[in-house]
């Protein structure tokens, strides 16, 4: 390798490292804050010499985070499962059968993506009250499913169009298999890569949801991580060390998932963005 390109590599690598440090700064501040006692008034930049884990235990108990973790887990699990089943099922005819009706329906689902969920807040709230779904897991599950279905259908339809051969379906049909069976036994298993990506994206969105949760899950028994945290912040605005510890606990599950499945995160995004 010649001298100038080697020097260029060192310069660019230094720049990359600098960007990394810059982007890590807020997390560094978060960590130092969480590891300090309330009585420690040192600057947030100073790493604590005697690390205190007590904030984590105190935040866990005071903000009822165990309960919030469970609620968030239940909602995320069921919403993601429904999203995958209903979404893949819907995408199949929309991708494969180019009838006038289906073309219109596909456009309809795509158009829904633009609708901001909060624009319909007032009537949605009324609907949820009338259905008696206030402060239930179902309301969060249904709302999340409805709001991420268009994206799910979009990603599945693109994948089916570009990677699932039509001949496969025709071969199965000659054997006399019904559409439903063809779909679940032959098509769905082939959708595994995109299903993994959609699952990851959906789980992150639903896990982090605050807009729906803050309106419909006010009761402590059903509150999710984000709602628990925003209440906790309101009560402990002058004890940020506790809030920092709670924020780390709330973030950890998705952060671990991300670090383990990083490849799929990146692939999912790329899949959605590359044109067919």
């Amino acid at each position: 390798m010649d001298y100038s390109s080697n020097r260029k590599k060192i310069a660019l690598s230094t720049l990359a490292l600098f960007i990394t440090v810059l982007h890590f700064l807020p997390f560094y501040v978060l960590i130092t804050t969480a590891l300090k006692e309330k009585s420690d008034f040192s600057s947030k930049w100073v790493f604590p010499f005697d690390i205190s884990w007590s904030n984590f235990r105190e935040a866990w108990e005071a903000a009822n985070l165990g309960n919030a973790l469970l609620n968030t887990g239940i909602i995320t699990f069921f919403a993601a499962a429904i999203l995958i089943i209903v979404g893949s099922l819907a995408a199949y005819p929309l991708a494969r059968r180019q009838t006038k009706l289906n073309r219109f329906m596909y456009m309809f689902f795509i158009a829904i993506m633009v609708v901001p969920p909060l624009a319909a807040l007032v009537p949605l709230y009324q609907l949820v009250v009338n259905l008696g779904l206030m402060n239930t897991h179902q309301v969060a599950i249904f709302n999340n499913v409805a709001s991420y279905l268009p994206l799910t259908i979009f990603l599945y339809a693109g994948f089916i169009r570009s990677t699932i051969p039509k001949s496969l379906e025709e071969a199965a049909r000659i054997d006399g298999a019904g559409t439903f069976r063809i779909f679940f036994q032959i098509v769905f298993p082939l959708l595994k890569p995109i299903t993994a990506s959609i699952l990851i994206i959906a789980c992150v969105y639903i896990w982090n949801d605050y807009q729906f949760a803050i309106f419909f899950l006010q009761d402590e028994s059903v509150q999710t991580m984000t709602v628990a945290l925003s209440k906790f912040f309101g009560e402990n605005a002058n004890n940020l060390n506790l809030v920092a510890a709670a924020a780390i606990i709330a973030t950890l599950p998705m952060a671990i998932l991300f670090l383990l499945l990083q490849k799929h995160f990146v692939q999912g995004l790329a899949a959605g963005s590359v044109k067919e």
Partner: protein
Amino acid sequence: MTVSTKKIGRTKQNSSLWWMYLPALLFVVFFIVYPFLNGIRISFTNWNGFSQTFDYIGFRQYTRMLTDPDTWTVVRNTLIYGIGSTIFQNVLGLAYALLLNQSVHFKTLTRTIVYLPVIISPLIMGYIWYFFFSYQGGALNDVLIGLGLERINVLGNVDINIWIIVFVNTFQFVGIAMIIYLAGLQSVSRDFYEAAEIDGASSFQKFKNITFPLLMPSITINMVINIIGGLKLFDVIISLTGGGPGNSSQSMSTFMYDLYFGREDAGYAATQGVLMMVIILILSLSALIYFRRKEVEA
């Protein structure tokens, strides 16, 4: 006999299979379309959000909205959140992608750290930056004091706080733009560059004439998702400023939330919802159409 089986086969192939998307349709209609249409109806009432009775008052909420100075503050903020974040996320995201697309060390580390905020709740991201920007004991003010300067109250300053929110939103989602641009860059064939090098093209010429046009699809998708995300901004505002001081950093989403739950003004909140829908629709559709046309040209 053979003819009739063929016919059955063909009609089967041409059927819409509408029952397969019926469940999806029900979800969307019930939880998005119906509430949205009902919201238009409520925007013509003086409903307070909980009582059983209300009156239809025609366009009065609409004239109120157009003459309400808060409306314009909120619309201006929403546009700054939407357009400002879109510009910063795309410029930075493209710069990062161009850097990481070369042969550099720390590639995976940089990509991981830049992308990490994407998976964190925007609400929590707001709190994390609050530790940084808060007036009392914030990390930023510690630096300023260390340098012998005055502390500043960035979140309480009505000229700065909206830009802090744009900054935090950019910081959080620049990773998405970066990844999409990286995928786009990696799909550009090396042959183009080699041909250009033979013709003696400079780095800038290569970027302008090869990279940029071929990245147009990535630019379109980034522009559209960033603008929709920015215009819907809610969580991060709640955690950083709560929309204040006054209404100075309120977005349309937080303003509606405040009108409905804080001021029991549901009819007016619904009217603001209609305005928000119209603005998002116009902006995202124009972005989509504009950049799609560019793609065709390129």
